[in-house]
């Protein structure tokens, strides 16, 4: 499992999105913080026809609720069998996950 970068407010400690430069709660400055890449699938879509530049269809984009209390987007790791893909399914970040393109695998039961 790879660590994931989120941000935390330096003033109030609130965990924020990776692209929040100011804390939406108190306005404080946020700083990059690492967090465990564990969470559950909130929702997903499998893209069969890309409208933009991506051509490697199909691929699955997940909306993941991290344990840290932040929701992030990431790809479902191509090696991860998707027959267990469902809302609430536990996922972990993959070793080859990048900061600008998170990848998650379904946790083996």
């Amino acid at each position, binding site marked *: 499992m790879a660590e994931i970068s989120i941000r935390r407010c330096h003033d109030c400690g609130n965990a924020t*999105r*990776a*692209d929040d430069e100011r804390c939406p709660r108190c306005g404080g400055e946020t700083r990059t913080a690492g967090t465990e890449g564990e969470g559950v699938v*909130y*929702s*997903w*879509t*499998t*893209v*069969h*026809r*890309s*409208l*933009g*530049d*991506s051509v*490697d269809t199909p*691929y699955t*984009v997940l*909306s993941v609720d991290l344990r840290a209390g932040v*929701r*992030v*987007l*990431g*790809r479902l790791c191509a090696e991860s069998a998707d027959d267990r893909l*469902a*809302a609430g399914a536990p996922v972990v970040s993959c070793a080859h996950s990048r900061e*600008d*393109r*998170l990848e998650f695998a379904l946790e083996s039961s």
Partner: protein
Amino acid sequence: MSGAGLGGGTAIVGVGYTDFSTNSGRSVLSLASDAVRAAIADAGLEPSAVNGVATYAVGDSVPAQAVAHSAGIGETDYLLDLYMGGQAPAYLLLQVHAALSARLADTVVIFRALNGRSGLRVGRHKPSGPPAPAVETRTALGLEAYPQYIAMWAQRFLHDTGATEEDLAAVVLAQREYAQLNERAIERRPLTREQYFESPYISTPFRAVDCTREVDGACAIVVTTAERARSLRKPPVRLLGGAYAAGGSVGMDMGDVVSWRDYSRNCMSHVGRKLWNDVGLRPRDVDVAELYDCFSSSVLFALEGLGITERGGAGDFIRSGATSLTGELPVNTHGGLLSEGYLHGMNSLAEAVLQLRGEAGARTVAGAETALVTSGALMDGSAVVLGKEG
């Protein structure tokens, strides 16, 4: 009809369209100008009698000022360009009502014009200006356009409400029935349940037939004071009330699916809380509803979010025939944006006017006196209720 939060002091008096097509071969400005002139003529006015122009676009259209020039409106007291998509039409009508109330203008034309199929297609052109961080993250993941964003909402909606793809199918099939009665609709072919399930996935759970049809075209309405409306050519359609709401955590842009907590409820759940109080009606009191449908799921979200059906009940409501032409509440009588074409909901507002004037041909809802129009299917959206001159 108590309530009447806006007092019925604003009325729609003209409607105009261009043809809808997949390749207009014309400039957006000429489309806009033609629809605006058609709406003004429908009201029985000359362009010089109009003193305001308002529009909305997402970098894909022409400014209000250019249309004031091109449509011969000339001297102008009011111009408004909203940077918004499908959440705008009802909201823009409310904005124009505010402008009339403040005496900024007395007769305003609202238009939406775009070459949505042959020109700049939604999600396939990069907006100008520096990209927001949220956009860069999504692009890197291949989450690039509305079918994909809203698919994520729809997926969770199915999970939380117990709805299934059969419920998405119900929306599409019901609206194709109406489309057969609408010569303007770009997609008029009948669709069977079997054909629905043969349609290829675009972005699960959406199939091709769950997605709106992009079109080239323009649509416009003329809005004026109730007092002035009485002397014009067509029966006025009054604005009885409306609401705009942006929920609690709107995120950074329309495609932001990170900040919004509950994908199973969209802006319509928030709009609904304000709307019915403002208008003084209950959800099922309206006679016809034109519900914004960029995707099939949006109709389910609106029916439930606005309290027309209970949560999880929208699919059954549609399958019961309640939304058909002879049902309790006809919905998307033009075939919706799914069938008539994606004028970003301006055509749903125009359809409501045609319905209340009894001018919707074979799809006219008999005796309709009030119409609900919604705009938007993501974090923010709007709705208005219109009524026949009482």
